[in-house]
């Protein structure tokens, strides 16, 4: 069995090739740990059984992992002289069909959903294998989005060859590099090649491998060791496991070459005991290599001797650090030792020792086979080659991906990862595990290499990459990792042992809402000191998750500390239920649902009204973040919380019970305080602030520039979405508490702000964002060009449009949709032009659907460049530029890039609805600080502006946002302004606590989500009747019992 010369090696290569490309069909099931976890072994046995029963001649084999974890189990099928076909998500049910297709030779008849891609030719780098050409309808592997940007150097064999068969490895060109080295190259030439490749250690620190080898080679000793570090312990990282499981011989070959170059006689693979499959396959591989005499004495008859042993680590994370690893092998506790001396001088058993990560070793045979210069061409200048990342977290395509270093995070997250798995915004990527850091969206254009990640405070680490979306609380993320490092700290250095513990304590307090103001500073101080004064990598990088989150997500910490709020809804002690937490107004949703179920509709309404003085309005037009966090989604769909809320208020209004309730509210308001407060703007923010401030006993005057209250609700939201009767009723209810309104007075124009300031104890500015943005297009001043808001202001009441006029609406927000739909209702035809794709539209998805139903025509990926005149100063057409999707912006949407293609759409009128901004003139005049010359600058947590007494809230702070957010600001402002004069705890008194059943359903109740009835298109498209009709009684019953009662704690 001994391979002693090239011809023997080549003979085995032929043997292996016959297994890879047999004359009969070959079926190979991906049997990595992830594959097996998804049922690959069942699939394998199913294949085996059916092939045997049906007596079909086929070669059934196992392979490792091809990297696409989200689509496991993967099966690849080879028919002689045809491309290799890779199937995904194969279950035992699919097996008979697959076998039938294999039998008939018509692989393209396998259901399309199961076919991932085909491989016609594969470059193993040490060898190329040509399978065959065919199946034009199946995409080639490198044309699919997941694989397109990848480059497989390390994973060159993974998922294609049988890891338990040395012959297949040899067939893929295995051990040729070793042969070349042992027979021809001198050790220093190997190191020369390695230096030319500029390969850097893949364990995380990125030390140049060539240099490291040279140091070990130069060290003089009677014995030297090489060690493969396979103690992969980062949460979320599993590259090394898969590499070993899929291609153990590449590791052995890499180590053999290293041993030859450095003069080592013994190799040790230190692998986690938690990787039984990897250990098993390694043992098989070592046995096979020994059998072929590729390991052991006198390898290839060259006199070179080397053998490898496996040491199983007992699960201490710190043993991934090289000196602890050595201590562990020597039988001591895994505690790091000071360096110098470095292991290359004094390592295992005090002999010179070289330690490299699994992935580093994997690169070696390729560098020898193809040359260092070839290798250096891949990747960036200082970080050459590729890196395998385990891409996990909140993305669609989780898996093991190999990319040239220098690839941007965007590519990894959006192109390969397919973006968020739940349709939410990706907020950050955590790289490098507990030693790494969280990189925020803003930096996703960063090229991933050693230096640039370090600049951001993260590290490459072993290559774990965890995507996080808005549902991830960054404080919690920091806590998770610090908890990990705290428990994995060996305990040697004070800074790491005690410091991490203290940091964890502080973070824990923050997540419980017990944080203190100085905590952020303390965490930073502590983190930096731990980094600076720890002996090994664990301590030196342990604080990274804290420091990076503090750096990039400090607001989240502040939110936890100042407001005891966890926006992501993770820190459980800070909220009642996910819906309550996500509601800007923090409505106690489970409470009113339960109260309604207990037939206490009035109490339910009371419960609603005390959090939200505009229940009817929000019940119709709220963007319902509650529903996007509803835990019922894990079962079927979210509970229709907005509709329940609407139903309750509508019921009360129908029964006219609201007057009485508001009367009671008025009666029960706090005694007069004598404080006078001005509210500027009668929009949702202003009204809400006034509602609470009045109930607290302050004298409130609302100054409104318009003739009536309601703000944007009144001005722009079409009546078919928000009936005006309802709006008026709710405003009247609020006004009835004793609030004075001053209409038609614009602050800064009719009344100077300074005067208000003088006359009142506090001023709350809630003037919204109403100034329309302009595009500065040629022809914008033509007759027939309108602004969206201006159009809507009139749209509901006067007929500015003619029958059958063609209207072009430009924009993608709610105003644009509203304008288009209003135009339709006025008898016109509406075309909506948007520069990005439909998915990227900021407008409410349901509104878009309704608009489509009603006949609005959408034109995506186009933007106007000119409005064309009909010669009479009137609009004739719009000239549009075709756009193309480019890179990603900070919101994770693709940036539209203009092409040179233009086209025209003829029309009669153009409505520009590209957004609004804050009219900031008043700030400038009064010297109030602004953010970027636009929105008003206030303290995020106190809403206080740069001037004492003046507070602000709503769109004036954010630009156009949601009703709920504006109301939340009003509510918050009321609380803070009250605190300004009065003692603590008064605000809380306004809230009545209702007792209701605290029992969570054992099993989910109710059917799937009810959809409220909408008017038929024909009944609504020519009028302004309300489109959505709300729940029926039966629907309401079904919907309320669907609630899982996340607010019930304990039990």
């Amino acid at each position, binding site marked *: 069995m001994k391979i002693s010369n090239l011809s023997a090696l080549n003979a085995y290569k032929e043997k292996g090739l016959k297994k890879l490309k047999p004359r009969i069909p070959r079926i190979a099931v991906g049997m990595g740990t992830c594959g097996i976890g998804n049922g690959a072994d069942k699939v394998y046995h199913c294949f085996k059984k059916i092939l045997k029963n049906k007596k079909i001649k086929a070669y059934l084999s196992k392979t490792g992992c091809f990297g696409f974890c989200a689509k496991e189990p993967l099966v690849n099928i080879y028919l002689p002289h045809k491309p290799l076909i890779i199937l995904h998500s194969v279950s035992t049910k699919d097996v008979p069909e697959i076998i039938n297709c294999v039998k008939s030779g018509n692989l393209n008849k396998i259901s399309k959903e199961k076919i991932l891609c085909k491989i016609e030719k594969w470059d193993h780098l040490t060898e190329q294998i040509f399978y065959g050409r065919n199946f034009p309808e199946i995409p080639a592997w490198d044309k699919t989005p997941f694989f397109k940007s990848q480059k497989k150097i390390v994973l060159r064999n993974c998922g294609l060859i049988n890891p338990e068969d040395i012959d297949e490895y040899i067939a893929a060109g295995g051990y040729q590099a070793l042969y070349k080295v042992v027979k021809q190259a001198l050790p220093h030439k190997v190191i020369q090649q390695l230096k030319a490749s500029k390969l850097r250690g893949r364990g995380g620190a990125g030390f140049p491998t060539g240099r490291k080898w040279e140091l070990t080679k130069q060290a003089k000793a009677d014995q030297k060791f090489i060690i493969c570090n396979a103690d992969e312990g980062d949460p979320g990282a599993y590259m090394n496991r898969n590499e070993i499981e899929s291609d153990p011989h590449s590791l052995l070959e890499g180590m053999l070459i290293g041993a030859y170059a450095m003069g080592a006689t013994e190799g040790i693979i230190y692998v986690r005991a938690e990787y039984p499959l990897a250990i098993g396959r390694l043992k098989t591989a070592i046995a096979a290599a020994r059998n072929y005499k590729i390991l052991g004495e006198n390898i290839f008859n060259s006199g070179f001797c080397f053998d490898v042993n496996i040491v199983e680590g007992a699960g*201490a994370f710190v043993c991934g650090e090289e000196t602890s690893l050595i201590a562990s092998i020597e039988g001591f*506790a895994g*505690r790091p030792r*000071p360096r*110098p001396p470095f292991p290359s001088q004094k390592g295992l058993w005090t002999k010179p020792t070289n330690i490299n990560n699994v992935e580093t070793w994997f690169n070696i045979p390729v560098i020898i086979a193809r040359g260092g210069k070839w290798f250096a061409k891949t990747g960036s200048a200082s970080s050459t080659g590729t890196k395998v990342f385990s891409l996990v977290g909140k993305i669609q395509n989780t898996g093991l991906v190999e990319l040239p270093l220098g690839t941007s995070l965007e590519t990894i997250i959006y192109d390969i990862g397919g973006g968020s798995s739940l349709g939410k915004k990706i907020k950050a990527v955590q790289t490098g595990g507990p030693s790494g850091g969280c990189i925020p969206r803003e930096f996703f254009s960063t090229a991933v290499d050693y230096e640039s990640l370090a600049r951001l405070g993260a590290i490459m680490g072993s290559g774990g990459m965890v995507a996080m979306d808005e549902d991830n609380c960054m404080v919690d993320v920091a806590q998770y990792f610090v908890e990990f490092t*705290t*428990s*994995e*700290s*060996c*305990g*040697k*250095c*004070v*800074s790491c*042992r*005690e*410091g*991490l*513990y*203290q940091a964890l*304590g502080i973070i824990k307090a923050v997540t419980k809402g017990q944080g203190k103001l100085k905590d952020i500073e*303390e965490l930073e*101080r*502590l983190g930096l*000191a731990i*980094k*600076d*004064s*720890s*002996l090994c990598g664990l301590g*030196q990088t342990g604080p990274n998750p804290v420091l990076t989150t503090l750096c990039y997500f400090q607001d989240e910490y502040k939110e936890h500390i100042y407001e005891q709020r966890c926006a992501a809804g993770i820190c459980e002690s800070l909220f009642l239920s996910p819906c309550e937490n996500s509601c800007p107004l923090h409505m106690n949703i489970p409470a009113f649902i339960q109260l309604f179920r207990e037939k206490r509709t009035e109490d339910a309404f009371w419960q609603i009204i005390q959090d939200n003085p505009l229940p009817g309005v929000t019940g119709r037009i709220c963007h319902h973040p509650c529903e996007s966090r509803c835990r019922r989604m894990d079962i079927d769909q979210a509970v229709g919380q907005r509709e329940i809320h609407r139903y309750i208020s509508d019921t009360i209004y129908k029964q006219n019970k609201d007057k009485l309730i508001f009367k009671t509210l008025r009666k029960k308001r706090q005694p007069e305080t004598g404080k006078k407060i001005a509210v500027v703007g009668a929009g949702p923010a202003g009204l809400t602030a006034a509602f609470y401030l009045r109930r607290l006993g302050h004298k409130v005057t609302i100054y409104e520039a318009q003739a009536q209250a309601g703000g944007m609700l009144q001005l722009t939201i079409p009546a078919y979405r928000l009936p005006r009767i309802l709006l008026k009723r709710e405003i009247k209810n609020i006004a009835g508490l004793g609030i004075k309104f001053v209409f038609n007075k614009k602050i800064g124009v009719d009344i100077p702000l300074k005067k208000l300031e003088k006359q009142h104890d506090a001023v709350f500015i809630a003037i919204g964002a109403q100034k329309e943005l302009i595009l500065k297009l040629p022809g914008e001043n033509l007759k027939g060009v309108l602004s969206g808001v201006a159009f809507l202001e009139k749209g509901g009441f006067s007929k500015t449009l003619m029958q059958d006029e063609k209207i072009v609406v430009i924009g993608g927000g709610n105003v644009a949709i509203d304008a288009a739909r209003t135009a339709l209702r006025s008898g016109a035809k509406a075309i909506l032009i948007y520069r990005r794709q439909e998915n990227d539209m900021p407008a409410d998805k349901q509104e878009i659907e309704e608009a489509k139903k009603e006949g609005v025509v959408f034109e995506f990926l186009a933007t106007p460049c000119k409005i064309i005149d009909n010669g009479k100063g009137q609009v004739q057409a719009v000239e549009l530029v075709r756009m193309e999707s480019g890179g990603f912006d900070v919101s994770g949407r693709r940036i539209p890039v203009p092409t040179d293609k233009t086209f025209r759409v003829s029309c009669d009128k153009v409505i520009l609805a590209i957004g609004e901004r804050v009219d900031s003139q008043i700030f400038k005049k009064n010297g109030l600080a602004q953010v970027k010359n636009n929105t008003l600058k206030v303290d995020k947590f106190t809403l206080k502006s740069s001037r004492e007494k003046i507070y602000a809230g709503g769109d004036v702070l954010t630009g156009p946002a949601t009703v709920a957010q504006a109301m939340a600001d009003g509510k918050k402002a009321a609380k803070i302004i009250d605190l300004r004069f009065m003692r603590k705890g008064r605000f809380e008194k306004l809230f009545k606590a209702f007792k209701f059943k605290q029992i969570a359903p054992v099993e989910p109740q109710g059917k799937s989500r009810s959809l409220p009835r909408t008017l038929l298109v024909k009944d609504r498209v020519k009028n302004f009747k309300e489109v959505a009709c709300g729940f029926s009684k039966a629907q309401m019953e079904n919907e309320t019992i669907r609630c899982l009662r996340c607010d019930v704690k304990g039990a």
Partner: protein
Amino acid sequence: MENKLVNIKVNGKKYKVAASSTILCACKGCGIDIPSLCYLEGVSSEAACSMCLVEVKGAKTLVRACVMNVSENMEIFTKTQRVNNARRINLELILANHPLDCASCDKDGDCRLQDLAGEFGIKKSRYFSRDKIFGKKQNTAWQANPFIHLDPDKCIQCGCCINSCKHEAVQEAISFSGRGYRQKVSTPFSVPLEQTNCQFCGVCVQVCPVGALVEKPRIGKGKLKDFISTDTICAYCGVGCNIILYKDIRNNLVMSKGIANKKINNRRLCVKGRFGYEYADSPDRLTTPLIKENGKFRKAAWKEALSYTARKLSKIKAKYGPDAIGVLGSSRCTNEDNYLIQKFARAVIQTNNVDNCARLCHSSTVAGLGKAFGAGAATNSISDIEDADVIFIIGSNMAETHPVIAQIVKEHKKNNNPKIIVCDPRYVQMAQVADIFIQQFPGTDVALLNGIMKLIIDKHLDNRKFINAHTQGVNEFKKVVNKYDLKKVSRTTGVQPCRIEAAADIIGQAKNMMIFFTMGITQHTTGVDNVLSIANLALLTGNIGRRGAGVMPLRGQANVQGSCDLGALPNVFPGYQKVQDPDVIKKFQDAWGVELSAKVGLPVSEFAEESIKGNLKAVYIMGENPLMTEADINKTRYAYKKLEFLAIQSIFLSETAQMADVIFPAASAYEKEGTFTNTDRTVQLLRPAKQMPKGAKFDWQIVSDLSTAMGYPMLYKNSTQIADEIAQLTPSYAGIHHYRLQKEGIQWPCIDDKHTGTLFLYKDAAFKKPNKKAQFSAISYKQANELPDKKYPFILTTGRILYHFHSGNETRRVKVLDKFVPRNYVEIHPEDARKLKLKHNEMANVSTRRGSIKLTVRISERPKKGVIFIPFHFKEAAANVLTNSALDPVSKIPEYKVCAACIKPLKKKRR
């Protein structure tokens, strides 16, 4: 390489420092203090406390000064904001979990953490104290033992204790368990400390920078600032450990610490050195002279007792001649005391009947090595151990008898992995670290050594060049040795041939071999033969006359070497000047102004015999207790009863003192000034750590006063004067004066005031023999005097244990030691025990032809089958009741190590 200098910059200033030093050492040398809590000088640092952080230009993080070596052009900053900040945070992190009960802490004022907190001005840590994760369970490991107390709450996990246990004591009895913040100092599997291989040497306590580890005996006795410290020498074995003794204001000793003298103990101590000082404060101390009248003691005034004794002795001298009086010096007394006692014997009594207890331990060595090399002392220094590549230990249980040397050997083994061969009839502790362990039958050492030497010769591993150039008598030697073929030797000694062969290989190939031996070699009727065989082995392999190569007889008591050097021997004057030599006699007659006897006197081991014969009528003893230490005590007691007069200087009413006619209360070693000469010939200064009890006197004072009373005035004012007289008369001590010994000791020979002492003897193989050649001796194996037979089927061997010392008069009065090992026991092999139905911890009767004792059985695999072992420290069951008083013909040493014995279970009394 060691001396290479590099340029560094510290805080902007330029310095030149040794290239091999760490930043911390280098800065210390430059006068820049870097704080540290875990740094242990001379031991690899744990690098854990993060206090010694400094900024080094170019380094990414702060650097630990304790482990990073300096390099050329290194720029170091020790006081930057960054450094200060990091140190401060780390300090606060430590303090967060350290109780701030300084007021009630024994280590108050002796706590590095306290000092640092003061330096940084931290009153209270800003961090929260973590839950006390250590329950009471943790404490149990440390609770039962009487020596060491651990307060886990105070532990700062610096690892000093663990490191010192690992590298200094080389026991590895304690270690960290748990990880991260759950880490704690613990024993393996949290078993009680006494069940680990902890030897209670207490070095962990000494290095603990805080109050976590304290010596239990000192708890509640006050704080360091209330104590008065004295640098002195440990008064137990011959290693001569340098210690600091602390006394409290009541003149009681409360604590001892090892001094970091690199040549000797380097901070190490053993359990006796650390805890065994208490006897000096015992209420049993004698405080007034006693005179026996009608079989009962009565208190007497000094004057009366002295004149009474002078009268008695003068009368006996006049009646029976001077040689009817025997005088005993003591290895527990200083050089000055011993010089005077022999001067008293020779000049006042005018007899050479003066001896000391060295007779009973190393007389064979003095005779044997003297014959072979020319001098009887250890050839090398303790510090040479680190240069040896083979260490051959035969007949020495050094881990218990000379624990500190054992620790040094083990440290050397750990660091440099020399080969260690241990030959002992018992599986002694050093066998654990031995490469080869040979378990021969007691008394078969000559056969074993001859067997080894034959193999060396047969394998041509003998050092011919050395033999030819520097020795004589090799041919006769080879003739004898050639008879000892492996099979025969194996049969005689009971050792597997492969082990003997392996030992021969190692010894033959040694570059530098040091041979250690003690009583296992000397206390035989063939003691001198044994020693000569060892000398043969050293000569055969040329292992002598170099650093790291030589023969090291380890001395059992603090001043065995000195008491012999100063002539408390029947055949020599101070400095081994023979009494038969007329020139010598003349020299001393001139110096002392009296006529001196040229007749060799009696050795102490013959005192009894001569008394029985009626030749010896009076004995004057200084600080010895022959009625516990002589072989065959029953016979000795009978003999001493026959004496007409027995006087003794003692600190306790010992077994011998009880038989005396006059007792003079003396000062203990911790109260004296003078010199001790340790096992490697280092003469070291002893300083009084406390005042002696009122009524007691220094030994030299008593002797002087007695001499004066007997008409030979000795008018010394202090021991320094005596030392100067010694220097005048003793060539090897010629340059040794107290003023030269203030800092550290000097190894004799020290021939004049400028000579710095001698690290090893026989440099360039210049032996103190005619024609400078060493002498081979042809030694044949002789059986022990008494061998097992049917009636007495076991070989009984006796010896010392770690926790007690000799007749037990001191250690049995140290509460903690006596509590730990309160009673005597007999060790027996499990198979023998099974046959005899002996049970562990039950009582048994051991008897020999000379007597029997009752003691506890300890079943252990340490003794060889057929061999039993009994320690000799316990008067309740004195081993020497059993031992054979047969003597070596040359050295007159009794055969303590072999006699025939039988052992029977003691039937429990039925009630």
